[in-house]
């Protein structure tokens, strides 16, 4: 360890203050701090500090994503081989999925981190760790067969327009990973929806039934999957969205470490359940529903990207509501709107992406009213204390 440290100190010598490559120091710092937590000590303010830093927080989210990612690799192979009717082993399935997914992750990290490093050098700040999560999320919410260049282009759009245009990490309004998916969805709809994109190499096979459950419901087809299939995730869909079990494992880690807001996760599931219940109640109210409205409310919670979106995207602290009360309202509306969009939008059978993006836009408004209540309390107190003081 001492040896690595000394080597590193020698490598970074030209990047230090006053030396030739000082401008590029954020790049070398990012590498250095990846290996070592730096020896910086407190200068002003509190002399001791908490052990947590942003790297730790972000890596925790990455860890929480791992179960869903591994399941996604296996499911990629499973869907492929089972549709072809070929025999396969567990490792063959994982191998097939990994061969598809790992290049996507590599492209996402390569392109995204490249832009992040460039902006850090350009703006003269350190590289923020947020992209470690975003860069992993982007491939995980794409169809397995999407071309790599589309992944790359979506990343460019998400990082440049979704994040850096607003001032970088901490300032963005929309969740960058969902921005990437929305870009791909609207720019290349044939690669992002329909019935032949969700199973690996589906185009090569005739008579494949690779539709997602929501797709089937929207077009009035039979759903051949049981609730248990939906819960365990052996269904077609975006790479990592299918297994509710793995997603809940990640959610548990996020909640236990307090990295993800349990308020948002819980209230979003409640919101989705209530919307589902309302739709289920339509026949009782004398209205005729369709397949989607009659889809049981609990099934709404476990199909499509709802669980994945709620646990890993809606909880993004930057684009979510930031106040405690705001989180409850924001989460509830994410769930509520996601199911509503699902049912009402015939062109697109999945509503989570749009539901979360819409609420991302409204999160500052929710916060504004929550904070304003606090401001009004303070003004009222002032008025009661000194009636003669004018409250602006």
């Amino acid at each position, binding site marked *: 360890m001492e040896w690595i440290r000394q080597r590193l100190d020698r490598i970074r010598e030209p990047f230090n203050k006053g030396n030739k490559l000082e401008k590029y120091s954020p790049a070398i710092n990012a590498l250095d701090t990846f290996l070592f937590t730096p020896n910086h*000590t407190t200068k002003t303010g*509190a002399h*001791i500090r908490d052990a*947590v*830093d*942003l790297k730790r*927080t972000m890596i925790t989210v990455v*860890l929480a994503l791992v179960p869903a990612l591994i399941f996604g690799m296996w499911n990629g192979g499973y869907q492929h081989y089972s549709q072809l009717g070929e025999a396969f082993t567990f490792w063959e399935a994982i191998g097939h999925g990994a061969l598809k997914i790992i290049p996507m992750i590599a492209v996402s990290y390569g392109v995204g981190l490249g832009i992040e490093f460039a902006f850090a050098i350009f703006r003269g700040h350190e590289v923020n760790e947020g992209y470690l999560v975003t860069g992993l999320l982007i491939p995980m919410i794409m169809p397995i067969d999407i071309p790599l260049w589309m992944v790359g282009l979506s990343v460019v759009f998400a990082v440049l327009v979704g994040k850096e245009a607003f001032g970088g990490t901490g300032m963005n309004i929309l969740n960058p990973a969902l921005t990437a998916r929305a870009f791909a969805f609207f720019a290349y709809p044939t690669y992002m929806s329909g019935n032949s994109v969700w199973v690996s190499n589906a185009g090569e096979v005739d008579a494949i039934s690779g539709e997602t459950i929501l797709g089937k419901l929207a077009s009035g087809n039979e759903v051949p999957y049981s609730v248990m299939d939906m819960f365990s995730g052996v269904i077609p869909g975006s790479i990592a969205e299918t297994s509710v079990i793995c997603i809940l494992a990640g959610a548990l880690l996020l909640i236990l470490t307090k990295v993800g807001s349990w308020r948002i996760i819980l209230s979003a599931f409640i919101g989705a359940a209530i919307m589902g219940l309302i739709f289920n109640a339509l026949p009782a109210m004398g209205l005729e529903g369709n397949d989607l409205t009659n889809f049981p409310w609990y099934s709404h919670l476990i199909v499509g990207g709802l669980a994945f979106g709620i646990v890993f995207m809606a909880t993004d602290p930057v684009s979510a509501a*930031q*106040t405690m009360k705001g989180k409850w309202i924001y989460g509830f509306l994410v769930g509520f709107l996601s199911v509503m969009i699902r049912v009402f939008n015939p062109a697109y059978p999945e509503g989570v992406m749009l539901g979360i993006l819409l609420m991302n836009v409204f999160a500052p408004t929710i916060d504004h009213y929550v904070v304003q209540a606090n401001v009004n309390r303070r003004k009222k107190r002032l008025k009661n204390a000194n009636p003669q003081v004018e409250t602006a």
Partner: protein
Amino acid sequence: MSKDIRIKRGLSLRLEGEAEKELVKAPRSKTYAIKPPDFHTVVPKMVVKEGAKLLAGDEIFYSKYTDQIRFTAPVSGVLKEIKRGDKRKILEIIIEADAEDAYRDFGKMDASKADAKDVEERILESGCGAFIYQRPYDIVADPKDTPKAIFISAVSTAPLAADKGFIIKDKVDAFQEGINALRKLTPGKVHVSVDDTSAEHLKNIQGVELHHVKGAHPAGNVGVQIHKIDPLNRGERIWTVGVEDVAIIGNVFLTGEYRADRTIVLAGSEAENRKYYQSTIGANVSDLIGQASDSVRIISGDVLTGTQLSNNQYIGFFDNEVTLIPEGDNYRIFGWLPFTYNNIHSNSHTSLSWLFPKRKFTPTTNLNGEERALVVTGEMEEVLPMDIYPMQLIKACMAGDIEKMENLGIYEVAPEDFALVEYVNTSKIEIQEVIRLGLDLMITEVG
């Protein structure tokens, strides 16, 4: 009459290096110093020159813009040196102390019977005006204002902080006289908050409203107590005084002398002879701790709000603590891995330290990360037991948006109230400084 306050949110850090409850006399320093930077916003105007002979209680300087506030010598002796920094700013006024203090005689006065004007004048001329701080802004109080109440916190919740009950136990008579004097300064109430130990000694104090405070840090902060008892509105003033400072004020009336006694607790994992020391304001830190090595940080005050000292510098005017902790200028390999390095305390659950609530930690001065943009939400609210949105207020301060700061409650806070917020902050932003600059902006813009 007593009321109970329970603070639910907060964080009591358990650190290694607590001091024994034993009071010993500190060795007398050769030199003592008053440091004008201890009095935020005060611009000192000297009234004596180097070489002047001083009695304890003789005026050294006054505040240029509020000239009634005078600052007096804590010990008798010769004014040895006026240390100046950039732009000739006075940093330290060093007094070479006599072997035995000789006091200037202000004459005895019965504060409870005296006229309010005389009481005020006596407090100011003896230099005790320096002990009275005001909210908003956390600066020395302007005697021209009338405070709606005066708050005294005898609750210590900060990590390794001096036990205020222990400090005051032998000074209850002086404390009572100090209260009698302070009561003359406000038409409102004098509030004293106590914890279990200080309640024992202060339960019979007359003329105050006693509050029992329970809860984790920052429950002991006077700002938090004001917020719970009688919150501050725009245009109002509340004054705050330290517990031991009340006794100093009381002594001025009882004895006619300015006795600048200061009890200092020596604590922290790197300190030896961890005890309570009977010392005097402005003592030289090296007379207490000897020469500390470079690997030790000397803090005048507690680990969250104190100021860093070097060897042979002087303890701060208001500080009851000297804390020694190890410097943390070392690298940690893969320090970002969650659930590793669990010997470093974390309020976040990405470290397993929260599984050992009884464990005492030995923190270093390592920042444990680098400064980043504000990303994580919800962590600040956990340690700020006030009806205030911390992140929103901090951002308003950074942006210098005066109206927003006012709306979000800038008048109710002091930097020390945000010390824990700064401690737990994932993005390692210097939040106390942000709040201080925000308050300074309010002083210049609103006043």
